C-alpha cells in the first residue's frame, strides 16, 4: 500500500484539474460574458474606479456580464492582448494606448468598427462627430474606424507661481514662445557659485515620454514627426526636429537652466513638487497629482511655440480585437458605447484627471460644476483646439526608440543634435524597411 492510494488520489485530482482547465465554460444560456482588458498608466486608484464603472454597467445591462481585467501598463496591455489573440481567446474589448492602433491594424489584430456603426443606423461622420477632432487621427485608419477614444491627454507647461513672483515674473501671463520660456527659465534658475540649487525648467526623457516630448517640441516648431497618412515614414532628420532638439540641448548646455541627462517623468514631477524645478513640461494626466501634492500656487499653460502652437494627444482608445464571435462583438460594442457616452466619459475624467474625449461630457451639469472649481482642468481641454494625433507607425515602439536613444545621447552631451538625428533617421528607416517593401516600394 505504499503508493497506490495516494497515486490514485493524485491522478484523480490532476485529472479533474486538467478537466477544469480544458472545459472552463460549459455554461448554458445566460448573459454574454465579455472581458475588458484595462491598463493603469498612472496610479492604483484607477483600478477601483474601473470596478465601480463596470459594476454599474452590469447592473444596468442584464444581458451582458462584463469583467474588468487589470493588465498592467500600456505596454503590458499590448503584450497580454496579443498573447490572448494568439491563444485564440481574445478579450472582447481593450483600453489600448492610442498610438498602438495602427501597428495592430497592420498586424490584422483589430476589428473594423464600421459595420457596427452602420448597424446602429449611424454614419462614421456622425459617430466620430461626438469626439474632439484632434482625437480622430488615432482612431481612424484607412478611413475606417478602429478605436473609440476613451481617455486622453496633452502635454502642458506647469509653472510654480510662487517662484515666478519671487523672480519678478507675472504667472498670470505665462510664456507663450520659446524665447519667452528661455527667458523665464533663466530668471528662475538659482545658482550658488557653479552649483545650481533651482532649475528653471524640467522636460522628461525616458522611453515613451521622450518620444512624446520630441513630438511636442517638433510640432510647436512647425514640424510633423511622422506621416499621418502612412505608417512607413518618420521625419527625424528635418529642420523642424533639429531646431527642437537643438533648443532642448541649448537649455542644458548653453543656458544651463535644465539639468543634464535624461530625466524620467516621475523624477520631473517630484523635482517640480519639491521646488527643485520651477517649471516643467508634463502630461495633463499628472494634473491631479500636482493638484493634490503641490504646497505652492501653481499655474498651467499651453506649451509655448517657436513657429506655431501645436501639441500631440496622448491617452487610450477602446478597441475590439479581431476574431471575436458575433454575440461577444455585440456585447462589447454595447459596453464601449456606454463607456464613451457623455455621462460616463465625464465621470471617468473627473475620477482620473484625463480629459473626456466626448465633447458632450463638458455640457453635463457635473462637469460644468467641476470646471468651475478647478479652472486648471480647462486649460487641457482648450489646448485640444491646437492638438494633433500622436505618432503611430509600423512598429511604433522600436521606431520611437530609434529616436529616443539618440536624443538621450544629446541630452548627456555625448552627441550633437545634427549627427544624432541623422543616426536616428537611418535606424528608423531600417526598422520601417519591411513595411515599405510591402507597401510604398512594392511596385508593379
Amino acid at each position, binding site marked *: 500500500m505504499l503508493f497506490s492510494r495516494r497515486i490514485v488520489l493524485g491522478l484523480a485530482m490532476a485529472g479533474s484539474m486538467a478537466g477544469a482547465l480544458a472545459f472552463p465554460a460549459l455554461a448554458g444560456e445566460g448573459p454574454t460574458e465579455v472581458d475588458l482588458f484595462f491598463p493603469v498608466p498612472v496610479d492604483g486608484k484607477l483600478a477601483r474606479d474601473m470596478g465601480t464603472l463596470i459594476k454599474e454597467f452590469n447592473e444596468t445591462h442584464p444581458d451582458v456580464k462584463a469583467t474588468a481585467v487589470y493588465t498592467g501598463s500600456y505596454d503590458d496591455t499590448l503584450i497580454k492582448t496579443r498573447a490572448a489573440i494568439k491563444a485564440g481567446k481574445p478579450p472582447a474589448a481593450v483600453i489600448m494606448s492610442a498610438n498602438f492602433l495602427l501597428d495592430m491594424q497592420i498586424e490584422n489584430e483589430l476589428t473594423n468598427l464600421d459595420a457596427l456603426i452602420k448597424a446602429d443606423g449611424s454614419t462614421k461622420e456622425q459617430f466620430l462627430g461626438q469626439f474632439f477632432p484632434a482625437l480622430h487621427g488615432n482612431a481612424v485608419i484607412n478611413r475606417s474606424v478602429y478605436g473609440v477614444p476613451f481617455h486622453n491627454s496633452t502635454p502642458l507647461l506647469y509653472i510654480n507661481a510662487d517662484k515666478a513672483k519671487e523672480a519678478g515674473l507675472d504667472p498670470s501671463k505665462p510664456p507663450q514662445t520659446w524665447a519667452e520660456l528661455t527667458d523665464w527659465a533663466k530668471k528662475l534658475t538659482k545658482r550658488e557659485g557653479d552649483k545650481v540649487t533651482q532649475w528653471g525648467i524640467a522636460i522628461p526623457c525616458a522611453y515613451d515620454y521622450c518620444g512624446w516630448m520630441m513630438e511636442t517640441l517638433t510640432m510647436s516648431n512647425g514640424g510633423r514627426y511622422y506621416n499621418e497618412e502612412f505608417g512607413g515614414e518618420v521625419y527625424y532628420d528635418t529642420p523642424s526636429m533639429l531646431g527642437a532638439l537643438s533648443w532642448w540641448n541649448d537649455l542644458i548646455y548653453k543656458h544651463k537652466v535644465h539639468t543634464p541627462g*535624461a530625466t524620467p517623468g516621475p523624477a520631473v514631477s517630484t523635482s517640480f513638487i519639491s521646488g527643485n524645478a520651477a517649471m516643467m513640461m508634463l502630461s495633463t494626466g499628472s494634473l491631479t497629482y500636482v493638484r493634490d501634492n503641490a504646497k505652492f500656487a501653481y499655474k498651467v499653460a499651453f506649451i509655448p511655440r517657436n513657429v506655431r502652437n501645436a501639441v500631440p494627444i496622448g491617452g487610450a482608445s477602446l478597441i475590439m480585437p479581431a476574431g471575436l464571435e458575433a454575440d461577444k462583438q455585440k456585447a462589447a460594442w454595447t459596453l464601449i458605447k456606454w463607456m464613451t457616452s457623455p455621462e460616463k466619459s465625464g465621470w471617468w475624467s473627473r475620477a482620473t484627471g484625463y480629459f473626456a474625449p466626448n465633447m458632450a461630457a463638458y455640457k453635463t451639469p457635473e462637469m460644468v460644476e467641476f470646471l468651475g472649481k478647478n479652472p486648471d482642468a480647462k486649460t487641457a481641454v482648450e489646448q485640444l483646439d491646437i492638438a494633433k494625433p500622436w505618432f503611430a507607425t509600423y512598429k511604433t515602439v522600436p521606431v520611437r526608440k530609434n529616436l529616443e536613444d539618440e536624443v538621450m545621447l544629446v541630452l548627456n552631451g555625448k552627441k550633437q543634435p545634427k549627427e544624432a538625428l541623422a543616426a536616428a533617421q537611418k535606424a528608423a528607416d531600417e526598422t520601417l524597411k519591411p513595411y515599405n517593401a510591402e507597401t510604398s516600394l512594392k511596385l508593379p
Partner: protein
Amino acid sequence: MHSISRRDEMSLAEPAALPVATSAAPRLHVLKRVLGRFKASLPAYLLLLPSLIFLALFTYGAMGRVLVDALYQRASPKAPVRFVGFENISAVLADPAFTGAVVNNLIYTVGTAVPSIALALLFALALSRTNVVTSALRAALFLPVLIPMVAASALFLFIFLPNVGLLDYYIGRLLPVLPNWLGDPDIALYAIMIITIWKNAGYYMLFFLAGLQAVPEDVMEAAHLDGAGPYRRLRHIILPELKPTFLFVTVIATLNAVTQVDHVFVMTQGGPSNATNLVLFYIYQQAVEHYDIGKASAATLLTLAALMTLTALSFRTLANREGGP
C-alpha cells in the same frame, strides 16, 4: 489491490530475484528481465511523474517551441512565417544592440558577482560565531534578500532621483555637479549594479556561513597550536575548504546576473541609449516591442546554450572536486 502492492514491495526490495520461467525462450527471457527492471523502478518513475509533467509542460515544451520558433521568420508584416534556418541567429549576432547587451551583461556579471561574493565572504567570516549580536547582524544583512526586486527597484528609483533623491541630498554637499544616476549612460549600469550587490551579498553570505561550519575544528586548532596567524589560517585552511562553496556561489551569481532583470524593467528600460540593456531585456524587446518572435527565440536559444554550457562545466568541476581527495 493487496496482491499488487505486495508484488511492488517485493520488487522494491529485491529486483533481481524475480521468478523467471526456466522453460521460456531466451528472447522472452530478456523481455521479462527488462519488464522486471521497469517494474522495479516504476515507483521511482511514478514519484517523478508529477514534476516531469509540469517540467514538460512549462519548461521542456517551451524550450522546444523556442527551438522551432527560432527557425522561422516573416518576410514582411502580412506574409506568413516561413522556414529560414539559421538566419535569425545570424541576424541576432549581427545586431549591435545584441552585442551591446552581451558586453553590458559581461560587465554586469563580473561587476556584481565579484564584489557581492567578496562582501558575502567578509560578512560570513565576521559573523561566523553565533551569539545575539551576530544573529541580529546576520538578519540585518539578510534583509535585502527578503525585499522583492521590483519593490527594491522602486525604492532605489527615489534614492537615485537626480537633484532631489536621498543619494544626491547627501553626496550633493560634496560634489559641485550632481550625477544623474540613471540618466547618464556612463553611470547607469553601475547604479544598477549597486542594487544587485546590495540585494545579493546577504544571500551569498548564507552559503559561506554554511561552508564555514564544514571547516574541521581540529585542523583549525592544530594550526592555531602550530602558531599560524589569522591570515595563514584563512589562506591555507578556510579558503581551500570553501572552494566548493565558491564554485557554487559563482554559478548562482552568474545565473542571477543573466536571469534577474527586474530592476532594469522598473528603473531604466534598458536606457539611456541602451546603456543598461542586458541580454534578457533585449529578448523581451525583440518579442514585445519589435514583435519579432523569430529573433527573440534565436536570442533565447543563444542565451540558453551559454547558460547550460556554463552550468554543466561548473557542476562537473564541482562533482570532480567533491569526489576527489
